[in-house]
């Protein structure tokens, strides 16, 4: 039986169990009119039985799916002739792959001989058996669970409490998924980064001023010397981010102030959705807008006043990134300004403040935590932004603070490092993980600062 069929069947059983459970609870106390004699609402008894039907069976199914492939492979391998069992792990892996492919009817990389065919047949046979056993066991579990729960139903059974406890565990499991994923990503990046630091000293990575990620494949290769100093990448990132923030913060903030305090309801109703459209443009579109429109324009404008501007400049990338971030800053600031109580606004106006005095002296200070939080989020976004800088900022790892030169950023380098034909354990590839780790640490640091600023001011102002 297919797993999907099995799951559907279990779902059907659980639904049926719900109605049976509810019916039984009511019949125990003498019909629907006497529901108050039950500890919980009749529906909870239904859910209680349904949970007992579905959860043990589904748990078994999950466990089976995790264990089954390994078990079958072990069984198949143990059935192979002596000669095959002495193969190296790599070759054995290949063999198993071939057997699996043969079994499922895919392309096989070696000539099919009798042993291989036999092993594939064996594999299919085991798989079929496994599915049968699973179906029987799962339905058995479901039936057994249902029967136990059915027998336990009693007017004094605290069904609601039990159902709610199960629900609570589900909620805990759901919220752990995001946390465990984060932890998993951090750990995997961390371990790869540690492998990188075994090849390249961490001090060179953190303080080196040269970035030229090469690794010799052969010892006598030309240009085999590489250097992994990440400083130019981080200054490049900082430069582009700074330019982006210089554009986004004032424009976004002023937009928010206008929309929240000065605009009429009609302007607001049109302008807000339009701004949100800006936030919805894919970054790749911004990227070629930056590379094809803004960068040449910046170059021409620079040349007309006698400045040397590279065709891929930090300025062009930063400007476009800033425009991309405006909606983020303005909508978060707008929320923060709107969250300031009207009482505060009235208080200031009632003392004879003008609108602008009210804004600058009372509302902005009160909304500051929200605004700062929004800006830090925007900074994190700018640091992590990839597409625009890949297209518009260039690849040259210049250590410069001149916005007219081409710079490269951490994210751009991660992309280029991983889009190569290098082995996965070469220092060049591993450098991407080290950069990723650094980037993560920086954004984490910013978020922690941001949260603390927000918390500190919140305590003070509310």
């Amino acid at each position: 039986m297919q797993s999907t069929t099995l799951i559907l069947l279990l779902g059907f059983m659980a639904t049926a169990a719900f109605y049976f459970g509810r019916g039984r609870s009511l019949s125990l106390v003498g019909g629907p009119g006497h529901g108050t004699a039950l500890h919980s609402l009749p529906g909870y008894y239904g859910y209680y039985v349904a949970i007992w039907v579905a959860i043990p069976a589904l748990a078994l199914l999950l466990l089976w799916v995790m264990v089954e492939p390994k078990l079958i492979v072990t069984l198949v391998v143990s059935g192979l002739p002596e000669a095959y069992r002495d193969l190296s792990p790599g070759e054995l892996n290949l063999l198993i792959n071939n057997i699996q492919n043969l079994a499922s009817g895919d392309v096989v990389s070696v000539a099919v001989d009798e042993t291989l065919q036999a092993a594939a047949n064996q594999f299919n046979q085991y798989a079929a058996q496994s599915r049968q056993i699973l179906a029987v066991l799962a339905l058995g579990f479901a039936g057994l669970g249902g029967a136990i729960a059915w027998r336990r139903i009693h007017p004094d059974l605290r069904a609601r409490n039990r159902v709610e406890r199960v629900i609570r565990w589900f909620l805990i499991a759901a919220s752990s998924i995001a946390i465990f994923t984060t932890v998993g990503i951090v750990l995997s990046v961390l371990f790869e980064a540690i492998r990188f630091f075994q090849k390249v000293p961490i001090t060179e990575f953190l303080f080196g001023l040269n970035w030229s990620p090469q690794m010799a494949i052969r010892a006598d290769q030309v240009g085999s010397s590489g250097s992994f100093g990440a400083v130019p990448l981080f200054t490049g990132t900082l430069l582009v981010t700074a330019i982006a923030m210089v554009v986004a913060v004032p424009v976004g903030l002023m937009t928010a102030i206008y929309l929240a305090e000065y605009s009429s309801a009609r302007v607001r109703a049109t302008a807000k959705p339009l701004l949100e459209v800006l936030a919805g443009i894919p970054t790749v579109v911004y990227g070629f807008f930056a590379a094809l429109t803004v960068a040449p324009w910046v170059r021409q404008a620079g040349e007309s006043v006698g400045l040397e501007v590279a065709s891929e400049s930090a300025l062009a990338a930063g400007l476009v990134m800033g425009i991309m971030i405006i909606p983020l800053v303005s909508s978060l600031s707008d929320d923060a300004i709107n969250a300031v109580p009207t009482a505060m606004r009235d208080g200031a106006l009632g003392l004879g403040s003008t609108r602008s005095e009210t804004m600058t002296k009372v509302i902005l200070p009160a909304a500051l935590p929200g605004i700062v939080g929004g800006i830090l989020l925007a900074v994190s976004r700018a640091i992590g932004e990839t597409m625009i800088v890949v297209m518009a900022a260039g690849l040259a790892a210049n250590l410069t603070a001149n916005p007219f030169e081409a710079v490269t950023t951490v994210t751009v380098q991660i992309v280029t490092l991983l889009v190569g034909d290098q082995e996965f354990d070469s220092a060049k590839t591993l450098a991407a993980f080290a950069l990723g780790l650094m980037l993560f640490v920086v954004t984490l640091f910013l978020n922690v600062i941001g949260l603390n600023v927000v918390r500190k001011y919140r305590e003070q102002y509310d």
Partner: protein
Amino acid sequence: MKMTAMTDVTTDNQTPPTLTEEPAAAPVAEPIQMPQVPEQETELSGETVGNIHCENPFMIANDVNVYYGDNHAIKNVSLEIGKKEVIALIGPSGCGKSTFLRCLNRMNDTIETARVTGQITLDGKDIHRKEQDPVALRARVGMVFQKPNPFPKSIYDNVAYGPRIHGLAADRAELDDIVHTSLERAGLLKEVKDRLDEPGTSLSGGQQQRLCIARTIAVNPEVILMDEPCSALDPIATARIEDLMDELCEDYAIVIVTHSMQQAARVSRRVAYFHLGLLVEVDETDRIFTNPQHRLTEDYITGRIG
């Protein structure tokens, strides 16, 4: 028509029938005190009974109407507010007393849909005249709100805010002086003089409200509007604020909106009773509470209208 509307706000079932059956029973008895009231007045004729005039009028509202969009919130209200007196505005929720209060310093300007007609004069000059800057008006007619709303600043800066924006102090010493005097007059100085740098929000509710009063008088207004200033405070803090009003009315005209009849009786010299956007009755406080002339006023102060 009017009666249908009445039932909506009435909490007591007995009231509406009483109203319809006995129109103008009480007012006829004492015609001398309300010469402007026609003898056969109906329950909500729009005419105000009692005496809207006072001895030394400082603010005069004449035939004021307020509309919020299509909602006619205040109807033909005329009222005089005297110098150095406390006048209390009472009435059931939604009767327009706060709206009227907000007309007096043009706070309704900040509400997009609000429209005010009629004339309000301050010291003989129309507050809606073209040259009148609403900002300057609000400096002369200060306001204290229902919920204490100190700014997210230090106690000192809260009080110094008004003098700073209006440039009332030439230097720091003068500003210090204004802040201290205002806190002193608001009865708060003793409690806060050692912690003027702490945020205003760190004070208790009653202290915050006195801080807001200090902030208002720091601008040296001529009229103070108070919109239920004690509704968020406990009885002790309320008593302090009421004492404060007693002292302040020696220099300022005070208009207070309140839901507490006891408070109105304690602090005010005159009382105005609003009902469904109409000013029903105005008179000396004693007379309103001992011998109200309008049926609705009597019902309200005896607790028959919510």
